[in-house]
């Protein structure tokens, strides 16, 4: 059963790596425009939960609902298409393509969706301006500071106007000042576009930017507002 009005939800997720369980009946939901922080200690299953929710990996059992779709029943190609069009991603180290310029990195998801280069780069430019890194649009990732690189990664996640943004420790490699700036830009931009944000972090300082916090421990999820779901 889908929690009412939720954009993305998961029920009874189980996932194990060999004999080690990563998720053990985890439940999750997020509403449009909502920022949910997923917290927990190292190895608790936070990233696995994010990967299951985003359709990057298939859980061993359980369902992940996104609109009319059950992600666990979609083919790899269908999940990839969904990730290209509806989801955005920010990772700890940005993971920008080192050969491409900042502008080209941001335009990449649009181009993968079939957009023409000029149009993709026009839209990318807008996001670079919005995230205050337009000045470095022609530089490659190796020439950027950590904060700039992460803002480029945020712009890349937002450029397709996704409905859900998955951010896995997005400020883990940044100092607190840069981290806060990136989080502010990310959450503001998400709220402006009514995108939901799933924010995986182990820092309560980061979780403070969320509307709701859940904690993953031993593969189970605990909602800090509602108690154990």
């Amino acid at each position, binding site marked *: 059963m889908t929690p009412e009005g939720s954009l993305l939800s998961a029920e009874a997720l189980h996932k194990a790596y060999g004999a080690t369980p990563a998720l053990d009946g985890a439940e999750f939901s997020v509403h449009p425009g909502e920022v949910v922080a997923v917290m927990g200690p190292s190895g608790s299953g936070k*990233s696995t939960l994010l990967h299951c929710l985003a359709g*990057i990996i298939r859980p061993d059992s359980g369902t992940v609902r996104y609109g009319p779709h059950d992600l666990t029943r979609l083919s790899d190609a269908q999940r990839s298409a969904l990730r290209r069009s509806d989801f955005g991603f920010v990772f700890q180290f940005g993971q920008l*393509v080192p050969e491409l310029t900042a502008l080209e990195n941001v335009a990449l*998801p649009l*181009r*993968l969706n079939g957009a023409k280069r000029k149009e993709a780069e026009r839209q990318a430019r807008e996001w670079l301006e919005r995230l205050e890194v337009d000045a470095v649009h022609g530089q490659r990732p190796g020439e950027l500071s950590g904060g700039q690189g992460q803002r480029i990664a945020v712009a890349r996640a937002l450029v397709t106007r996704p409905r859900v943004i998955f951010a896995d420790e997005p400020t883990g490699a940044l100092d607190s000042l840069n981290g806060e700036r990136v989080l502010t830009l990310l959450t503001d931009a998400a709220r402006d576009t009514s995108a939901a944000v799933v924010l995986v972090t182990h820092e309560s300082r980061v979780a403070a930017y969320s509307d709701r916090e859940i904690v993953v421990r031993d593969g189970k999820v605990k909602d800090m507002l509602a108690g154990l779901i």
Partner: protein
Amino acid sequence: MNAIRRVRSGPAVWARDLAMGMRFAAGGGREGWIRTALTALGVALGVAVLLLGASVPSLTSAWHGREKARENLGQRHEPRPADHTLRYASADTVYRGAQIRGRLVRPDGAHPPVPPGIRRLPGPGRMLVSPALKELLESPEGKLLRDRLPYRVAGVIGDEGLLGPQELTYLARPSALRENAGYRIDHFGKAWDSPPMRTPVVLLVIMTCVALMMPVMVFIGTSLRIGNERREQRLAALRLVGADVRTTRRIASGEALFGSLLGLAGGAVLFLGGRQFASPITLWDVNVFPSDVAPGPLAAAAIAVLVPAAAVLVTLIAQRGITVEPLGIVRNRPVLRRRVLWRLALPALGAVLMLPAAGVPWTDTGLNTLRLAVGSMLLLFGVTALLPWLVDAVVGRLRGGPVPWQLAVRRLQLSSGPATRAVGGITVAVAGAIAVHMLMTGMQAGYAQAYARSGKLPQVGYWSGEDDWPRAQRALGALRATPGVTAARGVIDASAGRLPRHDASSGYDPSRHVSLAVGSCAELRRLAQLPSCRDGDVFVTHARGKGLAPGATVDLAPPAGMGPPPPPSPWKIPGTARTARVLAPPAQDAGPFVDTAYDLLATPAALPPSRLQNPLLELRIDFDRGTPDALEHLRNTAARIDPTLSEYSHLDNPHDQQLSSVRSGIFIGSVITLLLIGAGLIISTVEQLHERRRLLSTLDAFGTRRTTLSWSVLWGTAIPVALGLGLALGCGLALGALLLTLIDSAVVVDWPVVAGITGIGAGVILFVTALSLPPLWRMMRPDGLRTE
């Protein structure tokens, strides 16, 4: 506080660090073992090639040595018949295109000399044969040859009496050997200087070695990159526990040394195993025993020392651009701006060395050979130097395109080094292969053209010393009666001189040379238009404007140019001699042995051939190609007439098979080289993918299609390979054309082969891409996103 201990250095420290590196290589896990195995494979191939190259001098020396030992060439004076002498004559023949060396002996006494490879001479009517000839004679294919060699096989010639295991040769003792056949000798093994290797052979050896070694070196360089990340982590960990930078470099060198030493051993095994396959290979008519393929001890020792040293040196050079710090590797190599000027200097210098020779007739001197070899090598190496600049220049100008193209182009723009290094090997190999192939094709076409006229003409000539006209006539009759023979003609000819002799010198004077032919009226009518003819007539032709007139006296023993001149043997042209007009040779006689413009024609009764000095029977036979084995039947008849008759024909082009085998060898070598380079490219590509696995997982996370990244890998391989092949084609064709011009041969390009090599290059691209896809897809899995 403890004092800081000074770091020791010296051979002991070097040995300790190298040993530690070798231990890491031996116990470095799967990646380490793969790296070690591939390095060893590359070094093994390189060592095998080097050992093979180092064997060429001893190989040719052994080959020529056996040739010298079993002949008696360069004998100045014939010994008198004695107990220890024998008459020795050549009876070479050709059987279905295969050359057969035949030697006839007739001992003068009880203790004749014996050539190597046999214990004693065969008895009358018997022969000793090489194993290959024995096999041929015993096979159904050798039926006609058995008729030609009417001797009983009494034994097999040992290896020391053969040039190679495939040689077809025999030593026979005919029941009767005519007195003037061959010459008398008292021992075998007269010293003579073997001719130096011909320029094309030297070029072939050098260019083959260069073309083979370059890809091998590239492969070694590439294999050293495998597992780089883990190695760098290990070196950083060593720094953390107190190792200094030099120590880490020595340890890294030790890792390379381990693979190199394994490769050295593997190369030796490969070489020793590979040379066993030398027996069936005949290259340029040279077929050798496996034991001949042995490098000199000095060369072998140099290879054993230099190859591992080179591996250490390569590792040290590769580490110049990085500093191993306790927390990781710092790459401190500045971005290089590739300059074109010095890169052009190498090929330009090569061209300068070669160009002055073009346009002037080629002379086969040591200096010219060296100049050609160095020029060719500089041109080939120049290609490698030009390639990185070309890739940078071309790739730097590429813009736009779909995402896969953009990803590939940008990666090359940022770092074209690894791909270019790998492709550099392709470029040299392909350019070298094309150039050598063109050289061979051009030479082959030249021979084919030369043989084309005579080869089409079903005609064979024979010549032999003969001073008896009735015997000559019997020979003509036997030849005419042979199945498939359509016509046979012949005369006994000789040289005469004008009298009085010009001066006392013994020198040959062509202006006073008179050529004469003795034959029956029927035979003379084939040469000239005779008014009438009967035995006893003589004719003057004025064919060469010698101004001979009836009644003039000619010298039948003219000075031949060697030794003291013989006493004059005057012969007066009868006053009854008439004038005859020499006929133009029949149109189909164009080609060899058609110089029938004799000054004097005589019938045997007028001038007995026994009076002539060095009389030579010249026979020309036409045959019908439609008759099965007509040529072999004809050769059998000739052998029955006189086994020492020398055949004079251009029917079998021996060069065609020689050059074809070389060309096939080059083509196979190119394919193997390209595959080796393909293997290097796969290593390089997979290693790059491995280093980018987290990025690949990220790209997969936001929905990048597999096909997008697969195409990106394809383009990333295809762009440098295409540029390398383009450059190699240009350079190879130019070099080949230059080489052919230098040796005065027509420039011929074997386009199918060029297309074939290019096609294989394209195949390598697909091969590399196809094999890179499974690791690519594996690395696109979300595992790369896991940080815990």
